[in-house]
């Protein structure tokens, strides 16, 4: 047999393929969304820490920050955080259960139910955040 060609099966650049769930089953979608929301929530975490540091700079600095976050962009950003948190947390419960061999044959149904709960939760939060 000839020597294998130079395609690398395991390469750090391949991590982009984690997010490609086209034509794949629900489990792969759940996986891809889990990673996407994880990146989003981590980004939010750093942002949040940065924000809290303004407290150390006194009431004026914090006050001007409070004005900023009332802008629609930020409110929408917060909404995304809620959605991501709901999805990541609920799917996380599914992962914890199945990782210990509980309900593995029902992982698909579990995903659909929890995804529905995440959607319902997001809608409720959305209504509360965008109406008053």
């Amino acid at each position, binding site marked *: 047999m000839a020597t294998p060609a*130079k395609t690398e099966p395991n390469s750090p650049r391949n991590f982009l393929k984690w997010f490609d769930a086209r034509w794949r089953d629900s489990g792969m979608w759940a996986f891809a969304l889990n990673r996407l929301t994880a990146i989003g929530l981590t980004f939010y975490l750093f942002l949040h820490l940065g924000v809290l540091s303004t407290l150390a700079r006194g009431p004026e600095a914090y006050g001007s920050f409070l004005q900023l976050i009332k802008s629609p962009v930020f409110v929408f950003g917060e909404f995304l955080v809620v959605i991501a948190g709901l999805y990541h947390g609920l799917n996380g419960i599914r992962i914890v259960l199945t990782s210990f061999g509980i309900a593995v044959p029902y*992982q698909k149904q579990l995903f659909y139910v929890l995804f529905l709960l995440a959607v319902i939760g997001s809608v409720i939060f959305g209504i509360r955040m965008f109406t008053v």
Partner: protein
Amino acid sequence: MAENKWTVNFEIYRQKGQGAPKFETFAMEVRPDEYVIDAVERIWAFHDRTLTYRHACHHSTCGACGMRVNGVEKLTCITAIQSITRNGGTVRVEPLRNFPVVSDLVVDMGKMYTRLEQVGFRTTVPLNEAPPPDSQGIQRDRGASTELERLVDCIECGMCISACPVPLTTPDYLGPAVLAGAQHRGLNQSSAQVLALVDSSDGVWRCHSAYECTAVCPSSVEPAWRIMDLRKQVVKERFKRIYG
């Protein structure tokens, strides 16, 4: 019998030696109930003798003909063309992921076979340990069945490893087929080396529950469930070894 013929474009992944990969398209006349492997074989026989691909049994028992068809792993000998496209459609055929490409649609699965040997995956089981009967099935005379044996379901096709997102970035992940093989044998029947192999960050703990392995398996192996069961076996074995 009405000769129902479709025209389907087959985009075939081509790669030779150290050259760059590319896709070549062949417009093929096919019967809709023919299988993808039939079209690939005709491309080789009548259009391009340089095409290389793996196949042997043509009835899903050898595991040789696994390929990615329109992006998803399929056993091409049992994948009817009408199940994946329609008249005038396009079918993209690529080699499996996560294995080095040797040439065109042929990949090198040596690592998987070596690891299957390392975990001692059995090839036959006594009939009374075999999976439950088919739905209209055989009421097995269990008393007489200790001498009867059955080949295991897993045909070592590598499709589960191709579909799994983890080997995309982790070179040493054992992969669903190998972990399922270790689970099938049972850690209580295996050596300390096997326990160390699967109870590692590249073993049973590297799975991140994408479940795509079970989704593409053509042989009802259910590797995802087996990986989770193997975790339970690992924990049990560790307890045994600590507490005697």
